[in-house]
């Protein structure tokens, strides 16, 4: 007898996500559905506006990877108009991206994903003196993990628990058998959770130095970057470098050590060993290190074949809406797609919590579309980026990946797991922090003789332009596609990382990475599905990003109808 498990809201993510799974009598997941339950319509809103405003508007797709959309939208317009920005602008954009990654991956691991690994209640029974010794096992210079610090953290949280007031920690799946850290390891990680709150503030300040603020920086324009005074100020440059060193220190002495600790403790836990069932990976060249040189490489890997990595062909990208709340006959390329909302609501049925409205898996069930590459689902994200660079023989990446495997004693296959996805994010952060200094040095050299940050773009209202940009966002490959006509936005679409990963099944019944990652997983207790949350969080969901809608060539806004269907 199968049972339906409903998880909504999936918390500690950006946006609104619902996941449902069906388990058999042994609590093994037979089927899974992932759905975003919010639709905003940003691309419809872009229609008819000046291309110069695109970056500022698309940035509001997401307040987490905020800078990624800003940059991708701005660069899509530059690509369409044929604008070549000055070298300094490339470097500044790359430094802002470096800052974003150092911020975003830390927040994800500690504040969004961390509580799937760390049992806060267990940490309260740890021996702080013993924990301080344990911390030395994973790094010879631990941070926020001395006996006194650990004792203070423990006492602080104990106050909560003894009065039954857990605040933000209330009513979670504490005590679940798939938590594998010892009490001492839990205490170390909990201490880092609190320390990381402080570190992430400084990382956000790094981006604000050249971006004006974070989230939603405001210094990119079509044609370059506006923070020329900050670029020319030795005090400002030094401020960035100083904060960079502080955050890097935490990355090396805490983040890196905690992943090694997790690999050891969770090395035999099934919900950590599985989770990569779509073995197709997509990533693009990104992070400008020097003129024409990138930190990470682009390409496509199909069926887990690292030897067969090939170049991306943008023509092979299409989006299917068979099971999404839109109407369209066929899968469509981003330049030519349509979006007509067609909401069909929920279906009531029995679940582990009694009767509830549930997703109609046979019909339409999500506001996320299903992007496909040459008809196949693919995963994007830090794991994809590292696998593609690894397959390309990128020396820095090969050394980092092999180094971690050697340190943890794990085989190469361990990369194709939930653990691999989480570890890849950490490795990427370390590489970005280290290599980002090359960009910084390249900027210092260049401004000795060149202060240009901007070239004025020209738009001919009598011409039609088409362009796109592909970049790496912290959640994976992001592409924006624009058509400009009469000097205005004619058509716009963002194909975003979470859409690639979270989309529903397509017309051919092929399922995407989220859903595939859950099938076959055994739950300890279907009413407390920690394993599902852990796997889904390892993708770092960003739902507002994924719920986009393109405007469509040839359909006027007056024809745009929003009507309830079957509600």
């Amino acid at each position, binding site marked *: 007898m199968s049972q339906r498990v409903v*998880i909504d*809201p999936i918390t500690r993510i950006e946006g609104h996500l619902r996941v449902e799974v069906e388990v058999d009598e042994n609590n093994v997941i037979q089927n899974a559905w992932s759905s975003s339950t919010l639709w905003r319509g940003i691309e419809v809103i872009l229609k008819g506006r000046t291309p110069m*405003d695109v970056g500022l508007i698309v940035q509001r797709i997401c*307040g987490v990877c905020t800078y990624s959309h800003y940059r991708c939208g701005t660069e899509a317009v530059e690509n369409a108009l044929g604008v070549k920005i000055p070298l300094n602008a490339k470097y500044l954009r790359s430094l802002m991206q470096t800052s974003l990654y150092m911020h975003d991956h830390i927040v994800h691991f500690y504040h969004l994903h961390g509580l799937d690994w760390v049992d806060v209640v267990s940490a309260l029974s740890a021996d702080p003196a013993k924990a301080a010794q344990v911390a030395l096992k994973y790094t010879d210079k631990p941070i926020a993990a001395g006996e006194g610090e650990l004792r203070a953290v423990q006492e602080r949280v104990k106050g909560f628990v003894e009065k039954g007031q857990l605040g933000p920690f209330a009513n979670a799946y504490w005590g679940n058998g798939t938590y594998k850290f010892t009490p001492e390891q839990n205490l170390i990680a909990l201490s880092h959770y609190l320390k990381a709150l402080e570190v992430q503030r400084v990382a*956000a300040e790094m981006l*604000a130095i050249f971006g004006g603020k974070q989230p939603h920086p405001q210094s990119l324009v079509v044609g370059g970057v506006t923070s020329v005074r900050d670029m020319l100020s030795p005090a400002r440059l030094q401020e960035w470098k100083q904060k960079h060193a502080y955050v890097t220190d935490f990355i090396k002495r805490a983040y890196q050590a905690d992943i090694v600790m997790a690999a050891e403790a969770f090395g035999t836990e099934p919900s950590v060993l599985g989770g990569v069932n779509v073995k197709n990976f997509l990533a693009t060249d990104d992070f400008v290190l020097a003129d024409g040189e990138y930190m990470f490489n682009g390409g496509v890997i199909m069926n887990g074949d690292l030897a067969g990595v090939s170049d991306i062909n943008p023509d092979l990208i299409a989006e299917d809406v068979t099971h999404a709340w839109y109407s369209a006959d066929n899968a469509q390329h981003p330049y030519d797609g349509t979006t007509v909302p067609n909401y069909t609501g929920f279906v009531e049925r029995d679940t582990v919590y009694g009767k509830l409205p549930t997703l109609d898996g046979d019909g339409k069930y999500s506001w996320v579309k299903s992007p496909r590459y040459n008809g196949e689902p693919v995963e994007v994200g830090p794991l994809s980026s590292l696998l593609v660079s690894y397959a390309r023989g990128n020396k820095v990446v090969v050394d980092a990946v092999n180094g971690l495997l050697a340190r943890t004693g794990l085989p190469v296959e361990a990369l194709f797991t939930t653990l691999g996805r989480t570890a890849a994010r950490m490795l990427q952060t370390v590489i970005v922090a280290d290599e980002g200094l090359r960009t910084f040095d390249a900027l210092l050299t260049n401004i000795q003789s060149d202060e240009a940050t901007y070239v004025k773009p020209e738009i001919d209202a009598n011409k039609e332009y088409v362009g796109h940009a592909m970049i790496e966002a912290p959640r994976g490959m992001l592409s924006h596609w624009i058509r400009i006509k009469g000097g205005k936005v004619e058509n716009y679409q963002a194909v975003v990382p979470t859409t690639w990963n979270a989309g529903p099944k397509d017309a051919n019944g092929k399922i995407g990475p989220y859903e595939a990652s859950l099938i076959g997983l055994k739950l300890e207790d279907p009413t407390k599905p920690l394993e599902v949350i852990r796997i889904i969080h390892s993708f770092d969901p960003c739902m507002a990003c994924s719920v986009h809608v393109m405007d469509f060539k040839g359909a006027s806004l007056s024809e745009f109808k929003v009507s*309830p269907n079957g509600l």
Partner: protein
Amino acid sequence: MDTHAALYEQGKQRLETLRSLPRRHEETIFDKMAQHGITRRDFMKWSASVTAMLALPLPFSTLVAEAAELADRVPLIWLHMAECTGCSESLVRADTPNLDSLIFDHISLEYHETLMAAAGWQAEENLEHALETYKGNYLLAVEGAVPTANNGAFLTVGCKGHTGLEIIKHAADGAAAIVSVGTCASFGGVQAAYPNPTGAKGVHEVVSKPVINLGGCPPSEKNIVGTLMYFIMFGKLPALDMFNRPKWAYGARVHDNCERRGRFDAGEFVEEFGDHGAKEGYCLYKVGCKGPYTYNNCPTERFNHHTSWPVLAGHGCMGCSEPNFWDDMADFEKPLGRQLLHGLDATADTIGAVILGATVVGIGAHAVASVFAQAKED
């Protein structure tokens, strides 16, 4: 308008009320601060700076300190509607690190989807429990606009599939005060820009209670924390402007406190990004700055621990704390001076364009806006 004496008295009474509520933590804030190496003197300095930020006279800093001490008695429920999570991200960046994180966990955070450990059914239980247990006493913060088209079905949250519209109405019923955090919750924000396909609205448009609007995309961490502190201290809404924004934060125009204001007065303008003027810090009006039409404390408080703000980074203000700015102030890199905004720009534009040309457009707008600001204060 409250006299300071009356306001002080009100604050004192409010704190007495709070003191009578049950404590959530036995440990005092001073014990906690001691653990973090923060002295009582540091704490009083912090209180003084918050007092200044709230535009209150210095004697109020004792009230601020007491309020911080009592803050854990106020349950906070934070809901996410149609949004990008940028406002939560801004809250998480709250500066003066250790101390603000203490303030943060001294408010009893009952529900916040981005931060809470519980998920799914258990998360929904937390919300229902908090709405019931603290009925009439909780502070409700909302992030994001409320989709109303399609009977609100463009957003559902929770296993039970309630729409955002239903959830907001229910949560607003039992709230002691409602704070719309950010331009989306306040005025609909980007999803409400033309043609607003989801019928997105600000919270105050769908509930029948007073709502404090914190415009900004996102509002600075200081404006969020400062507003929560005001409620905790006085148990009432602060003095508000015509768009229900707290005057202490939104009472002055960006332009009036701008660091480039001297350049404006001297007629020195950036003509094109990256030019000589851009390197020298000239006024950004001609490349689209909307500072003369925007009310916020960005120039004085800045963002991210005072690190920067858009104008310092060489990009004009885009007016993000004003209603309908996505439509009214586009396109953002051109001077406004051509649209009817708050009824003042037509005048500025006409006078400026006809008589003296572009520079004077700015000066005209500035003069008219000053009169407008004065009227608003009254």
